[in-house]
């Protein structure tokens, strides 16, 4: 199993999107402190408030910015592309067949691919944490909410596990990189629509049944809320164990689904 993980890690880090993604992580990590300093020095006014008041100048602030920018879209897209390539892509170009001719059970191959994806994700997070941290300290000194921010980075990795799991599930179900990317896009849009619907229901305006309103207000098992898990430990948010639970349910459920599908799959 260790060698399978090694093989998948080496292969993943040789892929172009993986390298671009890590470059992007460094760029985001460096960009955010620079932007923040620039905004503060220029005395920019945002929504009628001076930037200096808007963003307290503390070294962990750029790291929070970088994490937010990362979670917004691009890095998740790279993670999805890598997940699609490593499973659907390898079914399509027949290299998974060559791998499965080895005397290894299929579940181990799937787990090795997941571990490789998460390794890449963790390396990206660490790079961003270090780059934005060093620049933040350089600009603003050493004070700050370091524990919360570090925790936010760790929780982001947890949330990304759910995203990676869902990507692998869609990849083995569709067996096509394009269909995986499209499927994930549709899933994220549907998820967003479901989120709005739940928000509307949770106001009690549509359905008055208190039981339904209560469930809707908790946003159970929604990918978009799971992806924001890292934010929930930052100031201004309330940490919610239910979102953490949702991440766990999504990760475990999608992986189980992917395992069952892969076990029975005919590999061309």
């Amino acid at each position: 199993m260790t060698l399978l993980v090694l093989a998948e890690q080496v292969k993943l880090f040789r892929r172009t999107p993986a390298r671009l993604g890590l470059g992007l992580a460094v760029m985001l990590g460096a960009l955010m402190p620079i932007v923040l300093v620039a905004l503060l020095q220029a005395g920019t006014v945002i929504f009628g408030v001076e930037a200096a008041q808007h963003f307290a100048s503390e070294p962990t602030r750029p790291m929070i910015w970088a994490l937010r920018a990362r979670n917004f879209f691009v890095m998740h897209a790279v993670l999805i592309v890598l997940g699609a390539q490593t499973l659907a892509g390898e079914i399509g170009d027949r290299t998974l067949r060559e791998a499965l001719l080895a005397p290894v059970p299929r579940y181990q191959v799937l787990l090795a691919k997941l571990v490789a994806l998460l390794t890449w994700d963790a390396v990206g997070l660490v790079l961003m944490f270090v780059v934005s941290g060093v620049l933040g300290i350089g600009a603003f000194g050493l004070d700050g909410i370091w524990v919360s921010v570090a925790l936010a980075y760790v929780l982001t990795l947890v949330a990304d596990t759910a995203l990676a799991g869902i990507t692998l599930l869609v990849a083995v179900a569709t067996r096509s990189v394009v269909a995986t990317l499209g499927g994930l896009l549709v899933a994220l849009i549907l998820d967003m629509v479901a989120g709005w619907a739940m928000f509307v229901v949770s106001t009690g305006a549509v359905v008055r049944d208190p039981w339904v309103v209560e469930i809707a207000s908790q946003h159970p098992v929604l990918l978009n809320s799971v992806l924001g898990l890292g934010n929930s430990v930052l100031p201004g948010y309330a940490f919610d164990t239910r979102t953490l639970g949702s991440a766990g349910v999504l990760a475990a459920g999608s992986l189980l689904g992917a395992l069952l599908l892969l076990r029975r799959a005919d590999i061309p």
Partner: protein
Amino acid sequence: MPQALTVRRLTRSYGSRKAVDALDLEVLEGDVYGFLGPNGAGKTTAMRCILGLIRRDEGEVTLLGDTDPVRQRRGVAAIIETPAFHDWMTARQNLMQAGWYGGLSGSSLDRAIARVLERVGLVDRADERTRGYSLGMRQRLAIARCLLGEPRMLFLDEPTNGLDPAGMKDMRDLVRSLAMHDGITVLVSSHLLAEVQAICNRVGIIDRGRMRAEGTVADLLKSADQPLYRVRCASAVALAEALPAESFTVESTDGDVLLVRTALPAEDLNRRAFELGFALSMLAPVERNLEDVFLEVLA
């Protein structure tokens, strides 16, 4: 000889069509087994089922004495259809991947890679990306990948498909040397019968998913009929009439060539023609080949 591979009643359907239908197959250790059949006979499907790439509906597979579907692939290597590589990596990096999957690592993997590259003659090109490889090179690299784990049995699915004559000869020589020098049991599927006849000692002929004939090449080539001779003679028609019908059957006459069937040895045919006043310019046995057997079995 103990069995390297035993397949019993292997069945796989796609919808209502049975691609492999209660197939029985037996390969002995040391065999070079030719797995024959027309296109679409179920050869590749059967090999995929045996190697666990696709589900089987029924049947048992014992491979190198093991029935566990994962463990039995230890000691087995295969090339199924066109070999696939991660084309954005070099040949060496591809072999590393395969080695890790096969449980090799560190310096023993490095040594194994050097050994197999040497064996297939790709040492000079090992650090190029496989994207630029020709079909023949890909086939050789695939063999190298198979040999990494020093397998006891090799499955080759149409290994010479798409190769030029030189590439086909290379592949044939390689398979032969793997069987002879390395003692690897080989199962090779093909519809190129001359090729199979040249390298295999046993064959199985399948059609529509079922085994139609199985045995050693020598046994299959033996015919129930009397031997046939091709005879050339200036006055062929007269000879055909003069030969006594009780011991010689003239099958056909074509210009100055006769096809004569007889239980007597060739010398007797020659002497008899001479006694009758005919001089033969050629007398040659017509040997059955695998193609004849193949067409008879499928008829």
